[in-house]
Every structure is written in structure tokens, then in C-alpha cells.
């Protein structure tokens, strides 16, 4: 028995889990409907796929949510996991699920997948026969991913960096890398049985003034860590920045560089997709304005040429959206994509060159790290502050980089901390920034975070 399989046997043996029948699961995946694989939908669809976020504690409420989503014309269904399950606290998840079922109130902010188990969940997934994407934010997602795959969920979001730096205060980073290595391997293994399992990285990060160079570096690194383990279908992603041209530039560069680095590392057969997240920062308290923001994001996504868009709702500023609000957003995004014609192909050579240089420079520093494996190089790079994200709650994050917006709303690097970008690249960033006479950086930051309010 392989080492991996031995680890798997241990992982799935858990008092909150019904016996895992690996043979049956392999059989299921081998024979699973092609329509459940987003990796295939990416190939066959001639439109941008639309996917909302969402999850409720009970099976019935998720079923009802999926029904509404389908009626709204959804392309990819989401399954968002509750935060107890994310923190591997299955006992609390179980208790809260029972309370939710008895009292018809939601005591969890998502679907406790481990508690429901794969046998139950699979019924729902196969019933709707639509690709499902797993949204969590879990550093140790081993059991979660085993359960998801066994349920028929063939797209897994996250990664050791993107589900750690924005989502955790002190989960040990080396562990995160190893636990995600496990996830990649299981995904790779199952990818051989039918269509490939798709892995997706979470580009929005802390969703707050993230400079594109850092986003792209992290996307490429998580992609390489995944492909390295045998994954064949991967989605890089980023979220609306607040500047249309910056989104276009980011898109052009991430498409070019993710392919370039995948190829350079020998993964020429890997499929790479681009996912665009509608505005992930603070939403306005006005629901009509939120609708306007959602449509604007959609138009930008079309200009960016994303393969998939992940939607927000008019309830975003208030709390977990109702299924109605969520489905309405899906319908409106589909409507907008359907009627939008004549999208021009835009580029900005100078900006693209600078962004390409920055990404190359940071990646070079990572690859030059003395370490035996890629994940250790990345680990060191983050520890040294070569990579850091603004507004991360994690203790390992360097917190030295400061970003603000230029007059066109592009996010620019004001203080570069330990980012290994060249003087030339940094000078380019600085040259775009215009602070008004006497304007304080803090005030500018507050204003720049709140541009959508």
C-alpha cells in the first residue's frame, strides 16, 4: 500500500465520519457523468461560466438553493462550507446542524459536509448533474476534500497560501503546504479515472488593495505546486481591482505568465483557466448600488475574457444572502453576458511590461531560494517577506508593503517592504502615485478601501 493511501486511510477514520469505501468511490468517479466535471465544461462551453457562492446548514436548504440557482441559469454550483468544519471542529458542526434541523434556523454559516457525509451529499450533486465548486478556506482540508470528491464535487478551491494568509492568524504554514500537497495528490489520482478534477486558486486574497504583482505571483506558485503533484486542470483567479484597465492588464499578464511558467516547469499538457471574482471588498449598503456594482463587474469580466465569473449579491454588505437574492444575481449576470456584444480586445503594453517584470522578478527570487523543494522555497520567500499580502491577519505575513490607488484607481505599491522588485519596476509604481498636497497616507488608504461605498 502506498504511503499516500496509508495516510488517506488514517485521515478518513474519524468518529464523525461514516466508513469510507475507497473502491466504491473510485467506481463512482470512473463512471460519473461528464456534466459534473467543470474541466470538461470549460472545454465545451462557448461562454463565460457563471458561479455564485452559497451554502446552508441543511440538505433541504442547499437543495432549494440549487433549484433556484438552476432556474436562474447557473453554470456552476457552489458549496460553501461552514466555519466549524473549516477549522476541523466536527463536533460543533454536528451539534449546530442538529439544532438547525430541529429549529429551522441557520446555526451554521455554510454546509457541514463532513457531518452530512458523501453518501447523502452525492445524491444531491448527481441529482442536479451540474459541476459543483467547493468553497471553504480550510488550511487542513484533507478529509474535506476526500469527502467532496467522493460526493461528486470535482472542483476544489484554495491552496496553501491563498487559504492561509487571508484566512488564518496562526495556523502553521509548513503544515498548510503539506496538507495541500495531500489534496493535490488525491485530485491528481482521481483525475486519471475520468475527466480531470479542476483545482482553483483564490486570487482575491484579503480583497483589500492587493497589488496585481503579488496576486499573480501567488497564483502561479499555487498552480505550480498543484501541477507538480499531477493535477491537469487548474484555474488561476483574481478579483476586480476597482480599475478597469488594471483588471485588463492583470488578465493579459496572468494568462501569458501562467502558461509560460507551467510550460517552463514541464506541464505543457495542463489546462489553465482564468476566473474573475466580482468586487470582493466592502460593498455599499444600498442594494441598488450593489446591483450596479455587480453588473459593472460583469462587464469588466467580459472585457477581461475570463472563463468563469464568481458572483456577489445585493445583500453583501448586510450578511449571508437569501437564496432569492443570490439567484437574482446569477440571472442578471447571465442576462448581461448574453446581451453584451462587441467586446474589444484591450491592452496596455507599458503597464503589461512593468507587471510582467515585477512578477518575473519576485518569482526569480523565489526560485533562487536555497531549498530542496518548491514549497520550501515559497515558504522561505514568505518568511523573508519576498511575498506578503496587505491586510493579512496571519502572523507570518511581513506587513511592510503599503499600497494606495493612483488617480485612475489602479492599485500601486507605495512602500515595497522586502518585495524583490527592481528599482525600475518600483520607480514605475511610484511615478503613478499622486498624493494631494498635505494628504495623509492613512486617509488615502481608508478612502481607497472604500471606493465602492
Amino acid at each position: 500500500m502506498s504511503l499516500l493511501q496509508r495516510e488517506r486511510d488514517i485521515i478518513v477514520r474519524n468518529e464523525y465520519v461514516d466508513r469510507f469505501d475507497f473502491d466504491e468511490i473510485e467506481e463512482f468517479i470512473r463512471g460519473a457523468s461528464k456534466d459534473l466535471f467543470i474541466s470538461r465544461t470549460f472545454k465545451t462551453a462557448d461562454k463565460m461560466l457563471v458561479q455564485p457562492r452559497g451554502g446552508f446548514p441543511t440538505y433541504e436548504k442547499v437543495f432549494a438553493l440549487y433549484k433556484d440557482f438552476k432556474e436562474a441559469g447557473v453554470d456552476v454550483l457552489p458549496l460553501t462550507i461552514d466555519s466549524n468544519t473549516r477549522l476541523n471542529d466536527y463536533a460543533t458542526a454536528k451539534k449546530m446542524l442538529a439544532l438547525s434541523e430541529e429549529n429551522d434556523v441557520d446555526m451554521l454559516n455554510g454546509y457541514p459536509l463532513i457531518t452530512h457525509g458523501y453518501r447523502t451529499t452525492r445524491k444531491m450533486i448527481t441529482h442536479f448533474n451540474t459541476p459543483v465548486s467547493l468553497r471553504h478556506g480550510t488550511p487542513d482540508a484533507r478529509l474535506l476534500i476526500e469527502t467532496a470528491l467522493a460526493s461528486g464535487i470535482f472542483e476544489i478551491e484554495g491552496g496553501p497560501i491563498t487559504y492561509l494568509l487571508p484566512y488564518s492568524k496562526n495556523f502553521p504554514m509548513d503544515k498548510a503546504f503539506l496538507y495541500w500537497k495531500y489534496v493535490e495528490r488525491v485530485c491528481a489520482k482521481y483525475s486519471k479515472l475520468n475527466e480531470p478534477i479542476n483545482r482553483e486558486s483564490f486570487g482575491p486574497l484579503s480583497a483589500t488593495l492587493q497589488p496585481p504583482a503579488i496576486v499573480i505571483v501567488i497564483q502561479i506558485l499555487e498552480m505550480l505546486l498543484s501541477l507538480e503533484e499531477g493535477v491537469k486542470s487548474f484555474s488561476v483567479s483574481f478579483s476586480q481591482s476597482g480599475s478597469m484597465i488594471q483588471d485588463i492588464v492583470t488578465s493579459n499578464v496572468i494568462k501569458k505568465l501562467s502558461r509560460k511558467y507551467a510550460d517552463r516547469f514541464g506541464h505543457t499538457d495542463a489546462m489553465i483557466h482564468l476566473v474573475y471574482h466580482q468586487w470582493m471588498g466592502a460593498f455599499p449598503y444600498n442594494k441598488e448600488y450593489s446591483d450596479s456594482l455587480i453588473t459593472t463587474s460583469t462587464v469588466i469580466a467580459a472585457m477581461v475574457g475570463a472563463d468563469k465569473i464568481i458572483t456577489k449579491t445585493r445583500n453583501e454588505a448586510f450578511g449571508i444572502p437569501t437564496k432569492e437574492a443570490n439567484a437574482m444575481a446569477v440571472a442578471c449576470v447571465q442576462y448581461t453576458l448574453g446581451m453584451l456584444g462587441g467586446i474589444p480586445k484591450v491592452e496596455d503594453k507599458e503597464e503589461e511590461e512593468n507587471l510582467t517584470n515585477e512578477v518575473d522578478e519576485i518569482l526569480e527570487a523565489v526560485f533562487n531560494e536555497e531549498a530542496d523543494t518548491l514549497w520550501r522555497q515559497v515558504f522561505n520567500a514568505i518568511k523573508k517577506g519576498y511575498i506578503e499580502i496587505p491586510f493579512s491577519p496571519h502572523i507570518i505575513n511581513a506587513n511592510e508593503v503599503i499600497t494606495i490607488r493612483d488617480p485612475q484607481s489602479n492599485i500601486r505599491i507605495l512602500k515595497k517592504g522586502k518585495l524583490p522588485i527592481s528599482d525600475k519596476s518600483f520607480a514605475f509604481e511610484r511615478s503613478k502615485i499622486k498624493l494631494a498636497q498635505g494628504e495623509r497616507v492613512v486617509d488615502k488608504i481608508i478612502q481607497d478601501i472604500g471606493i465602492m461605498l
Partner: protein
Amino acid sequence: MKVVIGVVGNDVHVVANRLIDISLEERGFEVFNLGVNTYLEEFMDAVIETDADVLLISSLNGEAEGWCRDLRILKSQYDFKNVTFMIGGNLGVGEMDPQLLVPKFEAYGFDLVFHQIDLNVGLDRLEAFLEARA
């Protein structure tokens, strides 16, 4: 004046926390920032340790209620007479009626409760409250 701040529970929303830190410093407070993912007991310890005048808790992910229920019990175990207890952010799951939320958190033992209120409005109110108290 000393203020202990932080985000309660399994909540990682750090942005407002950073801004509150900066704003309090600017207003002349001495700030002890416990960051995100802080439990009620840790807050209490920090208040005692720093001899703080104000405890300012944020909660954004909707789970405040579960984490703050026990404040009254904890308060009864120590002498917090001169400490102002304040909470703000997004205090419920889904869309909530602030009319119902505020009294609930006051009953838990908070002096000042702000559901979806801008931090500067909240800090203005804090200063007014401290002045009236003095």
C-alpha cells in the same frame, strides 16, 4: 487613555481592526491590538494586564452573539467598574434589525453597541461617552 482592541471569535476580518488601531492612535489613545481570532477570555486578561479604560471589540462575520453571551458572567468575576465596554461591526448573520440587536448586546454588558455604524461615528460617540463619564 488605554484601549484594548481586537476581533472576537473565529473571525479573520482584519481590515476594520487595522483602521480602528490607526484612528484611535490619532485620537491620542494608547492602543493594545490583539488582532483577529481573539476569544473573550483573552480580551479580559488583556484589559486587566494593561489596566485599560476601554475594551473595543469588533465582529464582522456574524458570530458575535455566540462569542459575547458570557460577557456578563466574566464581568461579574472582576472589578470592571471603570472600564467602558464597546462592540461594533456586523453583529448578526444575514440582514438584521438594529433595533433588536442593540438591546441584546447591551444586556450582555456592553455600554456602547454599533451595528453597521462607521467607525468614526462610533469613536466620536466613545469620546463623548468618556467625557460624560469623567
